[in-house]
């Protein structure tokens, strides 16, 4: 296990990583099957699920799995995602940040974008789950009126769209910020990486200042 004084610092412990990747894979399951049902253009994806029937069968189950894994994980991490002034500043300078101009913000464990991601995922997944249950044939849908199921269908699609956009950004950001995928896979980051991206977090973890 890398020690704080060594060259690598532990960013994500194994439990967190496992949770993250479980959610990630479930998300991919959900989204490929969801997309297949969303637009005929993607219906061929159903052949990845052994046909439309099994895909429709597995999609809601995957939704439940997602909720089961996501909310405990979110509950654990919600303190690090509390909104700080630095995050507001980050958001203001987001485009500059994207142009790699404003890179020195004293962000804590997560920067503004990641917190935005967190605070958008929490409600979106809840909405997706609830509207999913309302349209879940044949167990739950019959108990709801047709008009409720119609609205739930629309909201479900819209929420899924927003989530996919969010996750799309999450994917790109992870890929763009070199080292972050490695961090979520291996759990460690280089000292320089930590100090560069999350100075406040670096200090908290290593007890040293920006030396």
């Amino acid at each position, binding site marked *: 296990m890398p020690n704080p004084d060594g060259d690598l610092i532990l960013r994500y412990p194994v439990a967190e990583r496992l949770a993250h990747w479980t959610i990630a894979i479930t998300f991919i399951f959900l989204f490929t099957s969801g997309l297949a049902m969303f*637009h*005929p*253009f993607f*219906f*061929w994806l159903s052949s990845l699920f052994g046909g439309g029937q099994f895909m429709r069968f597995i999609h809601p189950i995957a939704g439940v799995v997602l909720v089961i894994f996501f909310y405990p994980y979110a509950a654990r991490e919600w303190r690090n995602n509390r909104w700080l002034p630095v995050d507001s500043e980050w958001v203001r300078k987001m485009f500059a940040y994207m142009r790699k101009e404003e890179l020195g913000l004293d962000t804590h464990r997560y920067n503004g974008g990641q917190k935005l991601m967190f605070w958008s995922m929490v409600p979106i997944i809840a909405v997706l789950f609830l509207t999913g249950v309302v349209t879940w044939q044949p167990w739950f849908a019959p108990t709801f009126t047709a008009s409720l199921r119609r609205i739930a269908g629309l909201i479900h699609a819209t929420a899924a769209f927003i989530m996919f956009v969010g996750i799309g950004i999450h994917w790109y950001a992870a890929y763009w910020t070199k080292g972050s995928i490695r961090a979520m896979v291996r759990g460690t980051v280089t000292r320089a990486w930590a100090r560069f991206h999350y100075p406040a977090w670096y200090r908290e973890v290593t007890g040293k200042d920006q030396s």
Partner: protein
Amino acid sequence: MDVTRRSFVKFSAALGAGTLTGLGFSAKRALAEVRTFKLERTSETRNTCPYCSVGCGIIMYGMGDRAKNAHTQIIHIEGDPDHPVNRGTLCPKGASLVDFIHSPDRSIYPEWRKPGSDSFERVSWDFALDRIARLMKDDRDRNFIAKNGKGLTVNRWTTFGMLAASASSNETGYVTHKVFRALGGVCFDNQARV
């Protein structure tokens, strides 16, 4: 080319599909095949609905073309369009005649209940018919009234009765009546009485 927003969206989507299809992910073409017509090679027989007295004409569709090895089973019945009364229509009973022909309650072999028993047992036709004939003859010989109290020849057998089926054919009715009267029977009726 008048590019409306809608066609642009379709175009770009199709473009995407084209590339993917190129990669061998061609979506299965949903064939628009029609439900197959189930009476394609059935054999037709004209008949009359046995239920009510409108006497609707029906066409019975039997599986198979009456080949020797095909045990024809009536799979569908519908109205006879030529029949002047029902003109091809049937009521709910007539429309479900196949369920009478294939009813689980069809009696399919002779059964016999011994006095005092609480269940039937299967018997052969010969056993049943011989025994019934025997019972009838003994009953008739014992109870036949040749002359009444006033010495008038009456030749009647009053201890035996029969109810004839108002849904059986004229031919059955005729031969039933002929035999029943030959036995001197008087307790005789059919559904016309109720």
